[in-house]
């Protein structure tokens, strides 16, 4: 196992994180004693073949799933033993999400979607920050539109703005460009990049696209439930090269990823 060597303060980290799906002979070990850190103010990509455990890692770290063994920390807060209520509040206040399927609430306008997590928390958005975020995603003229009236790229930018508005400790993006064409992908990835550079946001993105990974500061490679390699200052070519070196997942492999 390759231990992550990060000296700056970690926005999130895992310690010996293990996740097993199922029981007995059919059990699948999706994560195997993974210890990884995500530094604050950095943009990290998690990559790996299908079934490598990259999505499971993200789900466990984002308090959407629980660990079988080991620990997850968001900041200094361990997730172990937290109640559903506490985990929910943590997701609401400390974590931002961008999903592959956009996942906007169809009945709400872009504006309402962006402020939804704050609304659920019963807080009002900081209007300067709101303006900054909205301008950064370039949606000023689309705020009163419903999701069905927006393009895929626009929807994903709304989702990104939503993730950032509560100033979370960390933003998790799960294949954010998986459903987008290349132009829209570039917009979304560029926005995430800028949120790190300009606002000091911490972003972790699961992707299988080397060119998406090229936007990040660091790439963590997972295979078969373990961290197998990492790369700083990645370029698309270097990422591709590294991925080729990894054992390709056998067809029909476990769907744990």
């Amino acid at each position, binding site marked *: 196992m390759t231990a992550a060597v990060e000296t700056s303060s970690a926005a999130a980290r895992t310690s010996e994180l293990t996740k097993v799906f199922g029981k007995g002979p059919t059990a699948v070990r999706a994560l195997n004693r993974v210890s990884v850190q995500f530094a604050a103010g950095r943009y990290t990509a998690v990559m790996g073949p299908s079934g490598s455990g990259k999505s499971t890692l993200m789900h466990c770290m984002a308090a959407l799933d629980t660990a079988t063994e080991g620990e997850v920390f968001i900041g200094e807060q361990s997730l172990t033993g937290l109640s559903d209520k506490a985990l929910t509040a943590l*997701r609401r206040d400390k974590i931002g*999400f961008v999903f592959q399927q956009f996942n906007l609430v169809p009945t709400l306008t872009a504006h*309402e979607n962006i402020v939804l997590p704050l609304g659920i928390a019963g807080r009002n958005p900081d209007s300067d920050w709101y303006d900054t975020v909205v301008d950064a995603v370039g949606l000023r003229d689309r705020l009163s539109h419903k999701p069905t009236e927006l393009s895929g790229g626009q929807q994903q930018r709304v989702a990104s703005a939503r993730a950032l508005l509560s100033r979370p400790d960390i933003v998790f993006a799960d294949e954010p460009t998986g459903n987008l064409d290349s132009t829209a992908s570039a917009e979304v990835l560029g926005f995430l990049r800028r949120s790190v550079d300009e606002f000091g946001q911490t972003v972790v993105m699961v992707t299988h696209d080397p060119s998406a990974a090229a936007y990040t500061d660091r790439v963590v490679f997972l295979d078969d439930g373990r961290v197998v390699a990492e790369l700083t200052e990645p370029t698309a070519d270097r990422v591709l090269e590294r991925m080729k070196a990894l054992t390709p997942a056998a067809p029909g492999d476990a769907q744990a990823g």
Partner: protein
Amino acid sequence: MLRPALRNLLARKLRLLLSTFAIVIGVAFVAGSFVFTDTLDEAFDSIVDSSVGDVIVRPEIAGSGDATFQGLDQRTLPADLVDTLAAVPGAERADGNVTVTGVFVLDENGDLIGGQGPPGLAVNYSDAPNAAGAQVAQLAEGEWPDGAGEVTVDAGTAETSGYEIGDTVPLVSVGDTPELEAELVGTFEFGTALIGASVVVLDTDDMRGIFFDGDDVFTDIWVTSDESTSQAELASAVEAELPAGVEAITGDSAAQEQKDTIGEALAFINIFLLVFAVVSVVVGTFIIVNTFSILVAQRSRELALLRALGASRPQITRLVLLEALAVGFIGSTIGIGLGFLLALGLRALFATFGLDLSGTDLVFRPRTLLLSYVVGILVTLVAAYFPARRAGRIAPVEALRDGVALPETTVRRRLVVGAVLSALGAGLVTAGLLGTGGQGALLVGGGILAVLLGVALATPILGRPVLVGLRAAYRRAYGAVGNLSGENALRNPRRTGATASALMIGVALVATVAVLGQTAKASTDEILNEQLAADIVVSNSIGQPFSPGVAERAAETDGVDTAVPLRSAPATVEGRDEFYVAATEPEPFAEMVTLDAVAGDVADFTDGTVLVEEGRAEDEGLAPGDTITLTLPGGDQELEVAAVYEQEPIVGSPYLFTLSAFTAGGLRPQDTYVYITLAEGTDANEVQAALEAQVTDLPLVSVKDQTEFADEIRGQIDQFLRLIYALLGLAIVIAVLGIVNTLALSVIERTREVGLLRAIGMQRRQLRRMVRLESVAIAVLGAVLGVVMGVVFGVVLQRAIADQGLQVLSIPVVQLVVFVVLAALLGVLAAVLPARRASRLDVLRAIGTE
């Protein structure tokens, strides 16, 4: 296509269960109504069958005979006729009976046993066999009465009252002396259950002494045939020996006569219950349409795939209809089972009115089974037809697209159809109000239903302002969560509309009844104020007649100026059977109750004349000076119309006769009301106390001043309202299940959204609140529309029948607001399960749902 249909059903067990509920209660109502009335029918039949002799000789009955069957006929036969008849060839024996209705046993606290509706009978002892050759009553304990002052009572009554042999039993009677006493000498078993009736057996001469001034008479005579003679042969042999005015009928036809009369009353109960069954079925139809629409919408991609694979349109429609068939079948089966329970409930409900069927097994006829299945399956198929047809129109290419949209009829078309239906309904109501009797009521009922259906179709549009208002209120009160709820209620206007409509129908009917009930109460108050001059009214709280001795004693009481009785009986007038006509003493009555003449002069009302109510005078084309024929059991009487009076509910009868007309018709003198005025300068309280002292041993007779009398009438109206509310309550239950259904299906449909909300930090509590608020929005929408429609119906009906005792419109605003609040609470209740389901969804799995 059968197998995919069934597999679909099994794959969606929960949805299946929810959609069957809608049909279950409607079918249960149908089945329950029939089971209950069949049970009543059979119980009465077995009583009737065991209480007729081979041939019955009785005073000839003119008219419908209803008065006789109610025990109001006091005509008798000479006792020596028995010996004559016993000697008729073919007769083995002849036995005289003395039967009087309106005799009840009091328990040790002075309360009446039974008597909340079923009759109390007094009969003389007779060992004559009935037509089946059995003793009508078998001695259980002690002995039969022998001589004055001895009584044997039926075992049920003896047990309820707690009396032992040797105790002195107090009785009340409609005879000249209201209070009686006798020593209990034995108890007997009747061959069948008595359905709450009580029977006391007295010595023959004792009966004659009490009820017929000691005359040597019988009320009827049973002639028993020897083994070789049939009922019909014996009847014609007996007929030859009878004096004029006396008839002989076979036991079979006597039994049939009584069964027919009872059957009419039971048919009324059945129709009354079936009205509510129809309401339940209609409400259920809404739920089924809605459920299948949602199910088809959720499966549209799958159905499109089937189309792409080569299934034809009709095949897709058939697939959905096959599911409906299965749902209808399962729902009907459960409904029939539940109907049994409902019949038990009805048995308990009617037991509170004294109709005791506890000793009778429920009767389940094949007809009930067949009808329940036909109703259940047919309604489900018809309701599912529209969604099924829409499913057939899904284009195959939709299978390849995201976000399949079902072809929907435009909102405008719904509005047009809704408006046409409403107009049609309004027309029917108008026609019904102009018509009369059962047909008019049917038209009004059908019209109201059509208007409600029309409004229901337009609900997606009509409901919008209400929902928008609620969204604003929610947003203010609950912020983002409230806003989401408001949006959710608005996102499928048809779904929300149909769900709310089901509730609207129930609430509209409840509100209509509430408005009419309140109006009736307000009108009663006004009528009593303006038209009742009597200071004190003596009445029987459940409308059973009482002894004329009460009025006689009252008249002799110090401080009483006048006491005048009002009597009532069924009769045939101008060839038409009247359920209820009244009689009184003309002159004093005119001082007690103000009757406004429309034509003629009320002062001309004397013996030999009749007063006719305005509406009936119009129907029959009667004017002062005309002659009408009154047919009572004793025969026809020609009476001159003295005046036509404005409808007024104190008399409440289409005709007002004189007491002499009733007596001439052979009716027993027994009163339903006594109106009393006080002499000037007397203390009303003192006189009332004196009058009350006279009736202490008559538990059901009460003495009331005007205020108390008004309270009593208001109480009766309230009791009736409660019965109707209870029965409409089931339609509301269906509607609430419909809300549960819609919410549950919506939660399934919005699984991914729920997952997202949870992922971005919505607490389970907040999610439950979100579902709950949407539920409340649907319920409040239904209730608000229902209350509005109910007030409209109430006002229209009040205007139309204002002259029938509803002249003062009164809208129970507080009560209507309470309805809306209750509906909101029901909404909270309906949301419990769907909200819990939503809050327990696994976040990861939910968010990964397609």
